[in-house]
């Protein structure tokens, strides 16, 4: 990979996406063997710079870095200098001064990772772990990794796969990254949501739009349910949780309309009973826990490639 940072799926070519996924596959193969931990990044320091609470993403990156033997510094905004008014720039410069070579940043402001990478504030590699309502590129990569494991005939080309993303598209960085990545690999993507939860301008995305989950669900090879945040209701994006769940939730009755080989995905954390019923989340078609496991693998691949690994590792190179 030529890139220094991973900021947005927008920046990646299909070949680069496949390179990351292939590297992940090799890392998975190696770590499934006798070697659980690779010495590749020994002595190198990675910072988890989290301005938003996100335990699962932070832990996933931490696990990925540690399996590559990197030293990990965790920084969370709560109770830190940030709550005393320190800026993103100062925080990042401080951590770099402590030896960070790669910064994994989660921030509530869209574009924060790009600013960190491109403003000349720091020299480190930057990985976007979610910026506002913009992108969450490693989530899309792990989702694609999960999808291709279940559709091996589509390993290098998602043409013919129809993937539905359901729910709060407007505020979802997961939806933005996935719409870009899945279509870049050739999949048909349909966004399914009430009009209030679709951004103005979505017509310009390379996707189809539907307001009706029931008319779409039977055509999908993968259905990705997005978390619905309860504060959206108070902002009048929809009238009530009950009405939302009825029209856009993956309930137990609706589950029966799914193709037998379709997979159910969710980036987590789930609101069981709202966007997804317990029966759907726990069904045989659900791959939600696989997504979590694949998250660590894919993030290992990203760290490995950005910090100078060759594209397809062999055990000889790694050791």
């Amino acid at each position, binding site marked *: 990979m030529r890139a220094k940072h991973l900021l947005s799926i927008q920046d990646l070519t299909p070949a680069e996406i496949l390179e990351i996924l292939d590297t992940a596959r090799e890392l998975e193969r190696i770590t499934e063997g006798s070697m659980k931990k690779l010495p590749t990044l020994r002595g190198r320091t990675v910072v988890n710079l989290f301005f938003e609470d996100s335990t699962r993403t932070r832990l996933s990156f931490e696990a990925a870095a540690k399996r590559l033997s990197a030293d990990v510094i965790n920084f969370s905004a709560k109770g830190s200098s940030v709550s005393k008014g320190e800026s*993103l720039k100062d925080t990042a410069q401080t951590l770099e001064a402590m030896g960070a070579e790669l910064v994994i940043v989660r*921030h509530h402001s*869209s*574009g924060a990772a790009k*600013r960190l990478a491109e403003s000349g504030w720091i020299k480190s590699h930057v990985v976007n772990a979610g910026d506002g*309502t*913009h992108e969450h590129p490693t989530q899309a990569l792990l989702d694609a990794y999960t999808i291709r494991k279940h559709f091996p005939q589509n390993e290098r080309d998602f043409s013919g796969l129809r993937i539905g993303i359901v729910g709060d598209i407007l505020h979802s960085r997961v939806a933005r990254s996935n719409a870009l990545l899945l279509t870049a690999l050739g999949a048909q993507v349909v966004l399914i949501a009430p009009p209030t939860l679709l*951004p103005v*301008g979505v017509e*310009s995305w390379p996707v189809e739009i539907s307001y009706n989950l029931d008319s779409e669900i039977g055509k999908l090879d993968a259905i990705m349910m997005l978390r619905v945040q309860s504060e959206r209701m108070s902002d009048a994006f929809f009238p009530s949780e009950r009405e939302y769940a009825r029209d856009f939730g993956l309930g137990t009755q609706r589950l029966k309309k799914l193709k037998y080989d379709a997979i159910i995905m969710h980036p987590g954390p789930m609101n069981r009973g709202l966007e997804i019923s317990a029966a759907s989340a726990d069904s045989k078609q659900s791959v939600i826990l696989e997504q979590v496991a694949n998250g660590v693998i894919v993030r290992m691949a990203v760290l490995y490639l950005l910090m100078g690994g060759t594209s397809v590792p062999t055990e000889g190179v790694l050791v």
Partner: protein
Amino acid sequence: MSSHGLLVKNVVDASGQLIEIEVTGEVITQMSASVQSDFPIFDGQGLLVLPGLVDLHTHLREPGKEDSETVLSGSQAAARGGYTAVSAMANTFPVADTAGVVEQVARLGKEAGLCDVFPIGAVTVGLEGEQLAELSAMAQSAAAVRIFSDDGKCVSDPLLMRRALEYVKSFGGVIAQHAQDPSLTAGAQMNEGAISSKLGLKGWPSVAEESIIARDILMAHYVQSRLHICHLTTKGGVELVRWAKSQGIKVSAEVTPHHLLLTDDLASSYDPVYKVNPPLRTQEDVLALRAGLADGTIDVVATDHAPHPSEDKDCEWSAAAFGMIGLETALSVVVTTMIDTGLMDWQTLVKRMSTAPAEIGGYAGHGELAVSRQANFILVDPKQKWTVDREAMLSRSSNTPFHGQTLTGSVVHTFFKGVQVIRNGKLTGMKHE
């Protein structure tokens, strides 16, 4: 001063005529193709002579935010940009909502002596949109305020807006509205559209601007008062103003130089130098604004010069302040977007950047080159290409979105009340006493 004077020779006016101008003290005493005078000759070297520019929308930040601009540094930037009058917006700390504050700003402007500084008064106390400020006291003060605006915030309450429009009729005032429905723009970061949908930045719908413009046009008509619309940015807004004028409603409108040139795709860099209120819009809007300025639907170009210290821009987008500086680049942006493109001639530029704003503000002494008027004029090189350098600004701030861009037309000399305050683009050190 009255014994001092000069004879400006070898200059061309906006209509292309060679002209000579005799200045005695603060006043133009002769002006024709050939003037007889004993005063020393100022050779204009074929430059264009225009009346000094007049800005209706300038954030000078003093009192309260002197780290970004002062009345003096803003006056220096104005003089260099060819402005001989600016209108200091009311959103200072404290807010310019009393006679005391507007008089202080006016006094600081006189002390600077580089251009006229006409304070704008707040419409409501503290810009809070709840209670009318003492508009009459500001009008009767030494600052003689005629324009009132809560700029930065919209007077969104329709009843309060109605009262303000009615109230200022007694002293010939005008309400300058920052048209932005607050509820439709809560947390908004950039123009709502294809670009915001991809960037994940909260959208600022054009309808939030247009619905207030429509409402206030109807209101101004209903109470028969004068409405001025600040920084128009949308195609729909231009159409609303065009309709209002066709109905004979007393509305005027302004556009900023940046909205004539820049579009919302610049936000893709997430560089907050492009973050501004109202936001940069689409190319379609830009073209509608240019057409509206050319045909007179939009009366004036106003800078909305909004200085900010670097820490308010050297950060992530959502944490950054809204605003761009513009005094030192305004004329060149208008030349580049309107004259180079053949949409407007120099006489129309003079109307939009000097005559019309002086009329709207009631700024006697500005807006026209004529015998017995104040000698407020500039000499411009209309063809000069130059590259904007944010480090070279006279403004105390450097948040220009035009850094690195090459623009056409430069202000060479500025004369304010007969005093040459700018020579070859640099401060002379002289001021009007």
